[in-house]
């Protein structure tokens, strides 16, 4: 999946490389790539728009937290997973 190289949705980089601080961040990165590929035919615009919104809503939140929130919004709004279902599973 292509990533923004400038603008508000740019992922954190160190010396130009994509920066993950923990394994879950890499997994949710790959998960978003899968959703974009499988459910949106590789068109990342819908995800990207939500990512920009998520970052703008809480500018101080860590990048991959916003990424996760954007992916949540995308899958709930497009009816892939219900919000209740997600809340229940996350609480287990």
């Amino acid at each position, binding site marked *: *999946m292509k990533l923004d190289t400038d603008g508000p949705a740019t992922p954190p980089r*160190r*010396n130009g*490389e*994509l*920066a*993950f*601080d*923990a*394994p*879950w961040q*890499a*997994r*949710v*990165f*790959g*998960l978003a*790539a*899968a*959703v974009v*590929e*499988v*459910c949106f035919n590789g068109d990342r615009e819908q995800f990207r728009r939500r990512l920009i919104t998520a970052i703008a809503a809480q500018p101080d939140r860590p990048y*991959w*937290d916003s990424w*996760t929130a954007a*992916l*949540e919004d995308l*899958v709930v709004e497009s009816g*892939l*997973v219900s919000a209740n*279902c*997600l809340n229940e*599973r*996350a*609480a*287990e």
Partner: protein
Amino acid sequence: MSDDHHQPHSPSPVERRAAALEELLTERGLVPEGFIEEVNRAYEKDIGPMNGAKVVARAWVDAKYKMRLLADGTTAIAELGLGGAQGEHMVVVENTPEVHNVVVCTLCSCYPWPVLGLPPAWYKDPPYRARMVREPRVLLAEMGCEIDESVAVRVWDSSAEIRYLVLPGRPAGTEDVPEDELARLVTRDSMIGVARL
């Protein structure tokens, strides 16, 4: 060694939500098998280790940097703008004609994320973790890295507190190669110590 040494934290709320998303989407057949691993593999092999490779290349061309790196890995790595969570206590061990270093995490998979990216699958495998301590020369040879009997093998056990990075020997005949090209010669496996360059 106590268990908590390798389990520094329980999942945060965002980690739990990310895991719940992954489970639910996978159950609905929306995540092709192995897809996330495949995306991650690209980062593990190519993109992640480039940070460590830059550290190694700098040490090869700058003797003073190398001294600082071996004396205090964390600070010298931070000089290049690298480091951060899980790379905070970095110890760099140098391969020499007399010593070959290799890194393992005997209890789980502690790994210097910020400099090496994602750990390879075999790094987490119990046989690698057990055998690298018990019979490092045999395992290294099986992985295609034969170490001469005259060279001592040192095995370093990573933990939540200390992460090791191997500084591989500079390949012969690269005296005139510029730093950025040298960095491209450095492989992830050479920085774990399961390969030589």
